[in-house]
């Protein structure tokens, strides 16, 4: 209520001020549209003042916040990226200061001075050449260095890289290690069940999925039972939903039977030794990693800010990235002087209501600690959890 009153009174006050201005300029017999010299000079001074505010603000913000949050790069690839970023930042900061200075300084200096005409200077091809060639040269350097780094970052990982898969869904992450053979077993979304959340492919998982889709809680038999039951009355929309669901499930069943018929049992051992970890991603210092990513429902993005790594995870596609962590969590904590610090994996592609909470803590252990941890963890294979009664 107050707000509305203030706005209305403000508007009326403004209208009155405008009337006063109109009347006074009529008195001065000047065209109301001609900008008085005083206003011109005032604005020219404000231009210079603004430039100082802009530059000052920039320097203040960089001094206060420039080094917060970012922290040093915690991976080999990240360190390369940071070097390139610093070079680029120096170049663009120089351009920012130089061009803004010229712009605002000229705006201030060349304010209209009565009696002094402007200088008729329509073009100068040499100048155009200069500021086409110089930016082009600078950009050429930026391009070459940038692409060189990009090739390094996206190139193949070393042959002894540890294979880890990160599986993304609304709204969390699940990690899968390659297990004893460091090979990740095949996966297929049609095999996802409560006991096989990642849809891993083995003879038994295929069988279990077929059973579920045929005889499960919302299986084909149940649905057929409902549709054919003469003792109940189903509304049109429910009947339609059942039929659609039945059609889909029958289609999936056909595909599952195909999978069953063509499945090669030899690969099962490699899948069964995979280790699934849901609470935290644990990594080994100075070890090259080959991460692969899958998505269950929509596009997500695996973002590791401290390792300077990011890649989208896409349903229907397997994406990958590589990095080698160089600092343990403990070491990073002491560098940042923050004992509660942790590395993080955050989702960085809009994915629904839980997008802002879709994270997984990441911990980097030194070689000894990691090997000890993994020795224990290795026992929790997929085989153990799936075949457990």
């Amino acid at each position: 209520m107050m707000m509305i009153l203030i706005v209305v009174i403000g508007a009326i006050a403004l209208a009155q001020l405008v009337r006063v201005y109109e009347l006074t300029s009529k008195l001065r017999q000047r065209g109301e549209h001609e900008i008085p010299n005083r206003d011109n000079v005032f604005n020219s001074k404000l231009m210079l003042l603004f430039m100082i505010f802009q530059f000052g603000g920039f320097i203040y913000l960089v001094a206060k916040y420039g080094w917060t949050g970012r922290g040093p790069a915690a991976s080999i690839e990240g360190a390369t990226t940071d070097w390139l970023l610093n070079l680029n930042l120096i170049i663009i900061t120089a351009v920012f200061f130089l061009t803004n200075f010229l712009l605002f300084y000229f705006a201030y200096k060349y304010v209209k001075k009565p009696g002094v005409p402007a200088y008729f200077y329509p073009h100068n091809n040499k100048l155009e050449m200069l500021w086409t060639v110089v930016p082009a040269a600078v950009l050429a350097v930026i391009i070459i260095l940038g692409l060189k780094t990009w090739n390094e970052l996206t190139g193949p990982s070393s042959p002894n890289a540890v294979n880890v898969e990160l599986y993304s869904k609304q709204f969390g992450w699940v990690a899968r290690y390659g297990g004893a053979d460091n090979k990740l077993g095949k996966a297929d979304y049609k095999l996802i069940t409560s006991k096989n959340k990642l849809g891993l492919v083995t003879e038994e998982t295929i069988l279990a999925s077929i059973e579920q889709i045929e005889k499960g809680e919302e299986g084909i038999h149940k649905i057929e039972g409902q549709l054919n039951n003469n003792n109940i009355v189903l509304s049109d929309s429910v009947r339609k939903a059942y039929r659609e669901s039945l059609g889909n499930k029958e289609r999936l069943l056909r595909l599952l039977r195909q999978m069953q018929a063509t499945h090669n049992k030899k690969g099962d051992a490699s899948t069964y030794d995979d280790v699934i970890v849901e609470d935290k991603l644990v990594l080994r210092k100075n070890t090259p990693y080959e991460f692969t990513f899958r998505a269950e429902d929509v596009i997500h993005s695996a973002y590791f800010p401290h390792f300077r790594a990011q890649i989208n995870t896409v349903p229907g596609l397997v994406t990958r990235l590589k990095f080698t962590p160089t600092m343990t969590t403990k070491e990073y904590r002491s560098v940042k002087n923050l004992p509660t610090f942790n590395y993080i994996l955050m989702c960085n592609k809009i994915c629904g209501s839980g997008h802002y909470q879709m994270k997984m803590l990441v911990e980097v252990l030194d070689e000894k600690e990691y090997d000890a941890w993994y020795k224990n963890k290795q026992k929790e294979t997929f085989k153990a959890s799936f075949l457990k009664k």
Partner: protein
Amino acid sequence: MASVTHDHHAHDEHEHHHEEGFISKYIFSQDHKMIGKQFLITAVFMGLVAMLLSILFRIQLAWPGEESEFLHFFLGDKWAPKGVLDSEMYLGLVTIHGTIMVFFLLTGGLSGTFSNILIPLQLGARDMASGFLNMLSYWFFFLSSLIMFLSLFVMNGAIFGIDIPGEWGTSGNGPAMAGWTVYPPLSALPQAVSGSGFGMTLWLISMAIFIAGSLIGSLNYIVTVLNLRTAGMTMTRMPLTIWAFFVTAILGVLSFPVLLSAALLLIMDRLAGTSFYLSDIMVKGQMLTNHGGSPLLFQHLFWFLGHPEVYIVLLPALGLSSEIIATNARKPIFGYKAMIGSILAIGFLSFIVWGHHMFITGMNPFLGSVFVFTTLLIAIPSAVKVFNYITTLWRGSIVFTPAMLFAIALVSTFITGGVTGIILADSALDIAIHDTYFVVAHFHIVMGMSAVFGMFAGVYHWFPKMYGRMMNARMGYAHFWITLVGAYGVFFPMHFVGIAGAPRRYYDYSVYGTFDTESYGMIVDLNVVITFFAIVAALGQAIFLFNFFYSIYRGPVAPTNPWKSNTLEWTTPVEHLHGNWPGPLPVVHRWPYDYSKPGAAEDFIPQNVPLAEGEEEH
């Protein structure tokens, strides 16, 4: 010359329009000046809506989880229970904010308004090539705006209880919620987020109509520029505004259909069970049978428009500034031919850079390299333009009208926003800052500041032409300085938030509490600062709105040529004439930038003034 015949022909056509009733003058007008104003008012209204949405979600970002009466007032119990913004509606607000600002305010409001008003007037034409198509382009724009606005009110698959019968995605609450980029599968699956039900359907319908209107308008602009220039108006005597609108229209005609195709495929995936974008999906416990599609296909199609779109937004703003800076510095724009070359280069290059939005999508890295190269190339013509603007100011005789202030600020923000583009264009660097607030800072500075400033500059400068009256300059100054300082205060700190790794489209940053409390503190602090400046800048727009509407009715009557400008629009009478000039069309003898030409009596020589004895054309 051909234009003589056309003039005769056009004159005959317009004989029929002399009787104008209220409806044909104000509602279904075919006069380009009225249509331009219709675009402006509709676009400004939509812009205000989108600005309000941004204040709503900025309140949540600054004071996460705190009760706000302001939020509750606008969003009610459903979307702001107890005054706390619903996390799904947060996504809906950012989605509609982005959609409205990019398409409705900055495309409809810049191209639609100024192309319409200025193209015939600056070319010396009676009206656009087709008044009827022009009228249609506005009403399509209006209809699509209405639908997009109404999508905010979707509840249980209906709007205010009105349902579309049948299977048109009649489920869900709220508007589209997948970001203005609406990537599938999130935007294809109503189960994935509530807004992907009916809200997304309305988004698609609105955009399809918008695209149709935009195409009709663009075709009209292109034909008018090519065919209806008056005698003596060669292509290289056209003002830079026209060059900008012309290339913008070509960009639109070539790229908007691709977005339409992306939308059609998405509609089919949603309604017809196709698998263009979908494969191997299990969503909310439901196993889908789609197979073979790729979400990346949508991204390629979307960004094939998406990138030229930002130049469709920016080029008109640059074109308007060229005119305003030259006029108010009393100097020719420096390097007219180079400016034309830059516009053409930017236009061409804008088609081959779209992949820089997709560096980390999982597409082939080699493809990424190609786009790094082309994107950094586009920095060159942009740099040339900036240097030319600066040189235009050098040794000028500058008059600070509000339009001039906004035009100069446009150059400044174009520099600031443009240089961070260089960082983002470098794919290796993009990895660590893609989809963070660094990107948000970049595109808001170039679009939310540069392009918007271009629009303000255009309104202040051409207000006398649109409404025959002058806006109040002192209020214009107040509006400018509040907006400039406010907007910089909003978007500059975002760079730091982004470098710290803060992802965009996050409802809050509580996750930081679990891994980096120091960064969390910084993000929280800066978010408050940003919101504070956002509220100040938003309130500052009230001055503009007051000035604008007050001056339409009570502003001092404008002289014919208040800014002493050279271009042809200032040779028409102040009272609007259907057909623009009361007598024959002006004949052009010179380029539009003879300001302070040595040997001339005045410091400006309009284009229709013949060359004096012994005078050489530039």
